[in-house]
């Protein structure tokens, strides 16, 4: 049986098991176990065990429970509610203002989080219930949170860029710099999309009809007090990262401590609140981790049975102009992104792509930024769309995975538009790193 047939069978098995309603971690685990048993017999299970175990030693995942706990405390102590009330009043009678402000908050959070999971879960806990409460359309709200939350990957710091930079041996500092402008462009595209959609269909975003919202801007500013403490918290966490007091992961822990301090200041702190926030954190993080645990071993098995050689053959068989080769690579990443985990995608594609990109005379920094943008698409794209899973792990009752999948589709389109912009105008990614480092 050829590797192309096996590839197809693996994809079909994953899709079939997923459709059956089997938890996604179990789905990938089942396929990994079956493939390794078929190819290598019982000893092949070592491929599964060793890769699964390795997840437990991934320090960057430690930040996830910190962010989740921080968000839980902010949500349970009423701080999130006060923040969004303030934002809603500040936005006045502009349609869609809270959605736009959520995008802005997402960009700020992206600058303090290196991993997408932490940010999505935070926005899912804080922003989603509030947007629904304020009457925003469910699909629009979900889509914004998943898409804007994924910006954590593109706006530095970014663990994806670090892993990519190490694998491809390109400058991680330049990758960080390269991601800033495309990240802001994407955020602007999201904002534009929100405003256009709300203009075309006013039912998506109600106008705040509270009397305060009708006041002139200067008088509305005094209602900002609900936003003061959260922004001091965000400012403090960002300050700790960028002044060298803490590493990125430690900053997340300090944020969790800060959230508890705010709860104390607002007299919302209680044993019960902390206990419930902690237990909720366990459920959220536990479901995320067992998902990751299942997904990690497939790549090792796939590599060993010749997956890399197969893809290299596909690429070498192409007779296309250089930019089209890059487009094909992006297409491959996008397809792999629908069913594989991101580290797996990097392991499979970077060894093949990186030399080709340099050989064609392209700037590897530009390609790295494109790659990170593509990983954002991977986060959203069903069926294996981690952003959707992470949001599901904290979503209010009644929000099912299929609703989330439907909600993110238009935003995947927007992400592709952003990626095409950077593909055709490399200066969007290269201008800032060249300015800073050359």
């Amino acid at each position, binding site marked *: 049986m050829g590797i192309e047939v096996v590839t197809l069978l693996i994809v079909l098995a994953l899709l079939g098991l997923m459709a059956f309603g089997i938890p996604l971690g179990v789905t990938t685990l089942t396929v990994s176990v079956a493939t390794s048993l078929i190819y290598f017999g019982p000893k092949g299970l070592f491929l599964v065990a060793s890769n699964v175990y390795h997840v437990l030693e991934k320090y960057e995942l430690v930040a996830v429970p910190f962010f989740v706990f921080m968000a839980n405390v902010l949500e349970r102590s009423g701080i999130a509610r006060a923040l969004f009330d303030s934002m809603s009043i500040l936005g006045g009678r502009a349609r869609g203002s809270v959605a736009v402000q959520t995008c802005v908050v997402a960009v700020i959070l992206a600058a303090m989080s290196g991993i997408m999971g932490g940010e999505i879960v935070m926005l899912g806990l804080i922003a989603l219930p509030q947007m629904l409460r304020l009457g925003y359309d469910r699909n629009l709200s979900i889509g914004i949170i998943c898409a804007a939350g994924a910006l954590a990957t593109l706006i530095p710091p970014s663990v994806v860029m670090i892993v990519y930079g190490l694998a491809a041996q390109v*400058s*991680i500092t330049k990758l960080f710099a390269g991601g800033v402008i495309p990240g802001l462009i994407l955020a602007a595209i999201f904002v534009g999309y929100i405003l256009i959609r709300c203009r075309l269909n006013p039912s998506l975003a109600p106008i705040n009809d509270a009397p305060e919202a009708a006041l002139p801007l200067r008088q509305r500013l005094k209602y900002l007090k609900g936003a003061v403490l959260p922004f001091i918290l965000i400012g403090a966490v960002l300050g700790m990262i960028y002044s*060298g007091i803490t590493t990125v992961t430690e900053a997340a822990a300090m944020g969790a401590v800060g959230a508890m301090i705010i709860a104390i200041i607002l007299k919302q702190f209680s044993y019960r609140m902390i206990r419930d926030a902690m237990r909720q954190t366990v459920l959220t993080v536990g479901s995320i981790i067992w998902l990751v645990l299942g997904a990690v071993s497939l790549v090792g098995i796939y590599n*060993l049975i010749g997956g890399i*050689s197969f893809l290299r053959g596909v690429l070498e068989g192409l007779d296309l102009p250089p930019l089209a080769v890059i487009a094909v690579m992006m297409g491959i990443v996008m397809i792999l992104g629908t069913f594989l985990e991101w580290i797996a995608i990097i392991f499979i594609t970077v060894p093949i792509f990186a030399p080709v990109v340099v050989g064609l005379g392209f700037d590897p920094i530009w390609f790295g930024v494109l790659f990170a943008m593509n990983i954002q698409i991977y986060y959203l794209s069903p069926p294996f769309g981690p952003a959707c899973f992470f949001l599901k792990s904290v979503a209010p009752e009644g929000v099912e995975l299929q609703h989330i999948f439907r909600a993110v589709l238009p935003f995947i389109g927007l992400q592709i538009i952003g990626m095409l912009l950077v593909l055709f105008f490399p200066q969007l990614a290269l201008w800032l790193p060249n300015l800073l480092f050359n």
Partner: protein
Amino acid sequence: AQELRVQSSFNSGDYAYQYLQEHWAPKLEEMTDGDLSINIMATGAVVPYKETPDAVAMGLLDGDLTAPSYFTGRNPAFAILGDLTAGYDSPQQLLDFCREGGGEAALQTALDTIADGQIHVVGCGPYKREALVAAVPIRSVADLKGIKIRSPEGLAADVFQRAGATPVNLPFSEVFTALQQGVVEAADASAYVNNDASGLNDIAKYPIYPGIHSMASQQFTLNQDLWESLSDEDQQALHEWFYAAFEDLAKAVHEQDEKLVARDKAKGDITVIDWPQAERDKFREIARQAWSDYAKKSPEAQAALQANLDYMKKIGLMKGDGDSASQ
């Protein structure tokens, strides 16, 4: 040709990886008259980087081309064999130790303690000398005092601590932001060419080159059954191939390092620091104490250090009696 599937410790974009793939992977087929070819895979491609011995012993991988220091947690001997901090001056010296000075035998003994005779050492040795990444000027042992330096590994952290620095245990994923923002002031990383590629020198502008601390060794092993199934000629060819490849690679990496250092010196925004020999000797003396304490942790470590010391004495690197291992 029979394909050897070998997992390495290289990142796929590493200069050394590209160089081996381009120049040396094809040569194995020539050198074995078409009997063997080699598929060198990047780090973590099949199993996590610490798990290759088990995968090789089981025959899932045909071999590994990786850093023995990864297995320090299983036997302290791997720390001594993997990277004798501040030990040798050039990769060639350590390659010679492996080939002729008992290095291979010491490594085989250490691997036998964890893999039950299922792994065969084909060769070992380094291909690069690491440059130390630093965000502040460090020109002497005295300057190390109070420096927060990222150094997760046992022996290196111990040496830095003895020299007065403050080792900080950070995962590599945190190093970039930590160095950029000043959480740490220095970090162990890789060869100058790699540090240049990943942008470390852009954020930490006082690299120490040639490095003072690390010259990580690599091991080339094959599954024992597979090894025994090969003809004597092919076994010999594999051995020759490894040393020829690594000597050539070491030369190529050194040339790249020199070229980039010359470029950065000419440009002037990066200050490349070269320690005077007296300071290097002082640092090696400090390291020697750390080695001998560390070697007490296992009999294999003790034997590995003694083999090193004997060889260093023979080639004149070690002044004095050189048997500090037994102190």
